């Protein structure tokens, strides 16, 4: 006659299974809740992985903003050409504006080339996965540092370029008003 299974016969194996599971999970828990202490990285100081992620996101936002500035600069240059054409038709001397525009075009072309180069860092995404999670601290830090260096250089170049263009434009305007018909 087959023996029927009841709770009393199962309780032993169940308790054993529970103990084994508890032991397994107890050892696995620290892996999931990994501690992320700040550790020194050359050029960045003491940073945790979460800090690296935040830095990368900030760099990315800076890059986006710079791309908008470059796009706006091209629009400005096109509009500047319209002004030159307008005053040329009126027989005014626009040599100063033409020279300023040529220099400005040179500067923004340089900035655009730098933007493309900086973009390559984000395409490679070295040290991170697609969700901004750090995979390799050293590589991640290198990506951040190199992107920052490029962005900073381009930022200063753009500031200088726009400042010179503004200066030349205002000087020409003053000169033109002095020679108004």
């Amino acid at each position: 006659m087959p023996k029927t299974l009841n709770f009393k016969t199962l309780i032993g194996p169940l308790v054993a299974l529970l103990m084994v599971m508890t032991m397994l999970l107890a050892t696995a828990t620290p892996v999931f809740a990994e501690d992320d202490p700040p550790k020194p990285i050359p050029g960045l100081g003491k940073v945790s992985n979460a800090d690296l992620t935040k830095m990368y996101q900030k760099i990315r936002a800076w890059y986006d903003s710079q791309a908008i500035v470059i796009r706006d600069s091209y629009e400005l240059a096109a509009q500047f050409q319209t002004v030159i054409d307008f005053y040329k038709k009126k027989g005014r001397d626009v040599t100063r504006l033409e020279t300023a525009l040529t220099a400005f075009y040179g500067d923004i072309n340089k900035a655009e080339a730098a933007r493309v180069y900086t973009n390559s860092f984000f395409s490679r995404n070295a040290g991170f996965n697609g969700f901004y999670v750090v995979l390799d601290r050293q590589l991640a830090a290198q990506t951040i540092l190199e992107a920052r260096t490029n962005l900073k250089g381009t930022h200063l170049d753009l500031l200088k370029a726009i400042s010179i263009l503004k200066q030349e434009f205002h000087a020409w305007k003053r000169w033109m008003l002095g020679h108004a018909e």
Partner: protein
Amino acid sequence: MLRNLAFLAFFLTGWLCLAACGSGGSTDDAKSAVTLPAPQVRVELLPTATPAPETSTPQPEASESPTAAPQVQAWPTLDEEQYLLNLIDGMIEKIERRLNNTDTEIKP
């Protein structure tokens, strides 16, 4: 048995009442709405603007200078020169503002 029959009769009566309510109302309402009559269109000449009575307009004299006639514009135009200069100023300002407001500090 009798009890079951009573229940059956009760439910049948209820069902019949509900069915009667659903199909109730005058049959006139169920008729389709009368469509609008066809438009009365007269096949005639289309109405046109009343022709103005012909008046003899005096011919302009050839001796009048053409500049005397005022140039009427449909709407006022902007001062293009000022518009262009202001546009450049505005664009430069916008770019400068964006550059100056950029957060170049990457440390969180």
